[in-house]
């Protein structure tokens, strides 16, 4: 590749969306081009730091690793609610680094669990497929971080847990936590 790749191409490389041949051509170019190497180094710093961030849904082992590393985690137990209204409250006080919502759900027969995070108005809505879950404890852990503030401007998000078994998806229930950000 002689031409400098576009910024979009660099981002696609970082997102793992280029095929092997295209990725190799871009990589080789980056080793020989001063300007592209500098641009990529800046991108690397931001994407590298993003990859260190905690996912929306974590496993119990992940939570324990975070606590062992000194992160101050506050866990809130959350039960289903019908209709979806807040059944728990969690406050992001100064001495808490991470809020974890332990959604109680019977996922004992699930092959896979998906979690939907949606604004009360329906938009924005995120579906996170194949999340970690604890079959025995009946638990799905949502990791709520400070930079999520404002992601759901129309109110506290509704977390919907779905269990997938033998290819069929069924809804376990809706969960709402009243967030107090400060």
């Amino acid at each position, binding site marked *: 590749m002689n031409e400098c790749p576009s910024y979009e191409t660099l981002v696609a490389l970082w997102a793992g969306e280029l095929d092997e041949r295209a990725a190799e051509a871009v990589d080789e170019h980056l080793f020989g081009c001063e300007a592209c190497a500098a641009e990529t180094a800046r991108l690397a710093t931001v994407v590298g730091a993003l*990859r260190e961030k905690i996912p929306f849904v974590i496993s119990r082992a992940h939570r324990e690793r975070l606590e062992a590393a000194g992160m101050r985690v506050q866990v809130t137990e959350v039960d289903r609610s019908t209709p979806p209204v807040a059944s728990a409250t969690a406050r992001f006080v100064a001495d808490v680094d991470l809020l974890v919502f332990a959604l109680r759900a019977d996922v004992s027969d699930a092959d896979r669990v998906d979690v939907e995070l949606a604004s009360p108005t329906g938009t924005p809505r995120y579906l996170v497929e194949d999340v970690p879950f604890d079959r025995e404890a009946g638990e799905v852990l949502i990791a709520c971080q400070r930079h999520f503030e404002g992601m759901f401007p129309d109110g506290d998000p509704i977390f919907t847990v779905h269990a997938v078994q033998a290819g069929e998806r069924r809804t376990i229930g809706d969960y709402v936590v009243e967030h107090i950000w400060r």
Partner: protein
Amino acid sequence: MQLEEERSLCQRYANRIRSYGRCHLRDGAAAEDLVQQVLLVLLQSLRAGRVKDVQNLDKYVFGICRNASMEMRRRTIRARRIAEQSAVAAPPEGYEPSSPLDAAQLDRCLERLEPRARGVVLATFVDERDAQEVGRSMGLSAGNVRVIRHRALAQLQRCMQRSEL
């Protein structure tokens, strides 16, 4: 090769190898290991006169980097601490580890992104979902996700650079 020349080579290639490692190994610590390993192999090859075409060093370093990275992936990334060689050897002259990005500042810059853009960035690089998956989960086309994604990353970079000033 003089020590000064070696130091200058290390400075020239360290960031490129680091970027390559972060991109393909998806692990900051593994990327640092890769930098050290590749630089050591490069310097040893130069000292032993094994580099035939010194004028085309970029390609040569890229080759070492790609092979070392593939080897690391075979040994599974997260197990890291790759070759014992790089664990026991002193880092080459001119090698400097990257300075970590201010995580709190990154959070503040993330908060400034429009909610949908923030969701796309987090789903892509934290949850490791591709544009198709992100699009499906958010009711957007994959093309739309890509546009939102690169604009959001550019905005994040600008925000982080401003805060460094």
